[in-house]
């Protein structure tokens, strides 16, 4: 047994084991996270709307997500007549896979990253863009007019918002000189003014870049006020109109997984990742404690961002679709181009 473990501990086996462990961890994290983000969302919405929210199942409705999961699992997955059954069933799988894979490159701590890919940033974006394809596939395959309108919207929306998002990220990459997410975080160590968000000497428009990234993240994850994919009360339930039971549940989970990815990226790229931002306050702590503190810092930032995402959803009405595209093409892309120019200019000169 111990010999077997020793073999596993050696390269190249260790990498596989590590990825396997992380996949299991991520799968359970994504599942539990989605379930309880729904609870958080419902509670936040209830708080915003001055009502109690879920109260019946468990203390403060804490078991509600589990009850919901049972309900969704118990429902039949109906394939509407005339739909492309294969693509229709494939879409939820695809969307979940891409969401899971995106987690692979995100570092949660110095030692807590599934794989240390040099092109981690690129990998996340590559996987994240499959998300759109899966939505389009599901919408198209379900042979519903509302879903098809929604799929057309989703594609144009995602194309529009990936451009400013990537342009903003290029500024970060230029500042960090790396596309390795772990390295980007390490560079932001020390005090909180070392975080990319406050690197005003390289890019005086950094807060604006962060805002651009955040808006794009909202749009990419199809969250209100940019929830064109779902846009209930316009397109019934948009891409998900024909989905029932757990296939809808998977879309739902993937939405929350994507929010987590988006906010994690924002944390990593702008807010110093696992760095506490308090200088060398915890540097004397043992390695395991340091990891835990880092993880706590990461999650604190992550959930603060997620909370703002939820908060925005329950405050604003939905944008008009052309307003959404105008925002991207006429405002966000010029702004992110300007920040890119300013950053490259300052980096070269200084």
């Amino acid at each position, binding site marked *: 047994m111990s010999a077997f473990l020793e073999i596993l501990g050696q390269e190249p086996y260790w990498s596989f084991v590590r990825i396997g462990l992380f996949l299991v961890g991520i799968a359970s994290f994504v599942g539990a996270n989605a379930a309880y983000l729904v609870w958080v969302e419902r509670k936040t919405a209830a708080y915003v709307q001055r009502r109690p929210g879920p109260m019946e199942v468990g203390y403060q409705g804490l078991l509600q997500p589990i009850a919901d999961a049972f309900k969704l699992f118990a429902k039949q997955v109906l394939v509407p007549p005339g739909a492309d059954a294969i693509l229709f069933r494939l879409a939820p799988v695809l969307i979940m896979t891409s969401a899971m894979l995106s987690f692979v490159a995100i570092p949660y701590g110095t030692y807590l990253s599934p794989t240390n890919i040099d092109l981690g940033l690129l990998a996340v974006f590559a996987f994240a863009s499959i998300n759109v394809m899966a939505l389009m596939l599901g919408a198209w395959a379900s042979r519903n007019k*509302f879903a098809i309108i929604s799929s057309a919207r989703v594609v144009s929306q995602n194309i529009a918002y990936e451009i400013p998002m990537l342009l903003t990220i290029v500024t970060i990459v230029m500042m960090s000189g790396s596309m390795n997410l772990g390295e980007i975080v390490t560079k932001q160590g020390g005090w909180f003014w070392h975080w990319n968000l406050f690197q005003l000497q390289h890019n005086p428009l950094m807060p604006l870049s962060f805002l651009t990234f955040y808006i794009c993240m909202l749009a990419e994850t199809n969250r209100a006020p940019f929830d064109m994919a779902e846009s209930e009360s*316009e397109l019934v339930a948009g891409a998900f109109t024909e989905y029932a039971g757990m296939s809808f549940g998977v879309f739902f989970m993937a939405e929350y997984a994507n929010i987590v990815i988006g906010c994690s990226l924002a944390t990593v790229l702008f807010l110093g990742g696992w760095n506490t931002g308090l200088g060398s306050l915890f540097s004397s702590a043992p390695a395991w404690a340091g990891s835990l503190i880092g993880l706590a810092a990461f999650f604190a930032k992550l959930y603060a961002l997620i909370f703002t995402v939820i908060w925005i959803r329950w405050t604003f009405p*939905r944008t008009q679709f052309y307003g959404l595209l105008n925002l991207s093409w006429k405002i966000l892309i010029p702004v992110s181009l300007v920040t890119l120019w300013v950053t490259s200019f300052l980096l070269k000169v200084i």
Partner: protein
Amino acid sequence: MLLTKEQALARSTHSVGGPNETFVLNLGPQHPATHGVLRVKLTMDGEFIQRAEPVCGYIHRMHEKMGENRNYSQFLPNTSRLDYLSAMQYTHAWVGVVEKACKIEVPERAEYIRVITSELNRIASHLVGWGAWVMDLGGFTPILYAFDDREKILDLLEGICGARLTFCYYRFGGVVNDVDAAFLQGTKDFVPYMRERMKMYKKLVTGNIILRKRIEGIGMISQDMCRRYGACGPVLRGSGIQHDVRRAEPYSIYHKFDYEIPVYHECDSMARYLVRMDEIEQSLRIIEQALATFPEGPFVNPKVPKFVKVPAGDYTYATEAARGRFMVRLVADGSDTPYRVKLRTPCLANLSLFEEACAGMLLPDALAFMGSLDLVIPDIDR
């Protein structure tokens, strides 16, 4: 910018697939934005609407036939089930037409009670219309705030007439129950409370840039269009026509109060939005004045017979309901049942211009526009 139908259609044919590649989209009768069972048959060119044809009748109950089969008092509850959100004004029209035909005197106190309850009902109705509309636009929170306020009104009205939605409070010659001190005090407290809330709504919703972008310049209705379709209520006043039945064909004791008729000239959905918001304030003003001069006396004319017989003839009586002009045309033959009852409902007139107004519009804009008409489907289908 007001587009003619031809211009709007010309604009909508900029499609990649050519003008003939359209599809039919059935919006409703179970669509979340149609709030009830309205169905709109949309001929779509991509997301542009080429033709929108509302299909009505899914909740048709033939109230007009029912009117011919029951006596005058028995028909009274029917009138509160047309536009269930402004039942008070609807029952007012029915008792009004019978009182006018039979020359029934209404005591002053009863008229005051009617005005106060009608205006409370108008506020409640506007709150629902507002909340539901913002919900259509994707803002989920305001409707719960609106329902919170509406709850206060419904509690007050429940206290005096027992119903919370389909009020049947008015009777020929007065009202069924007298109001108590609790109601008067509650209403008195409600006025400043609602004013505070309106300030909050203004900050939270009216000023919101996303909302304004969604409804400004959307759903233009010209004055000529209003005339051709008989538009009424806030739709009319949002198009710059200062017409309110309370002023135009004064009924009850509305002439005693000092209030304004809000009017906006932009002709768009935002104008209709602002008209409704201002009307809440004006209703509060009327309530305030009515409470200040609230008279003592009987709440119902005791000489009204139990079975009313209306002298032969035809009579009309219009009230300004929350959604616009509600008119009853009564043809009486002198017996105790009406010979013919025609219910002219505001939503039908307001929806009838939908087809012309939304040609060439984008689907989400059309839904924002539909919200601005503040439709109650049972009111259309009757």
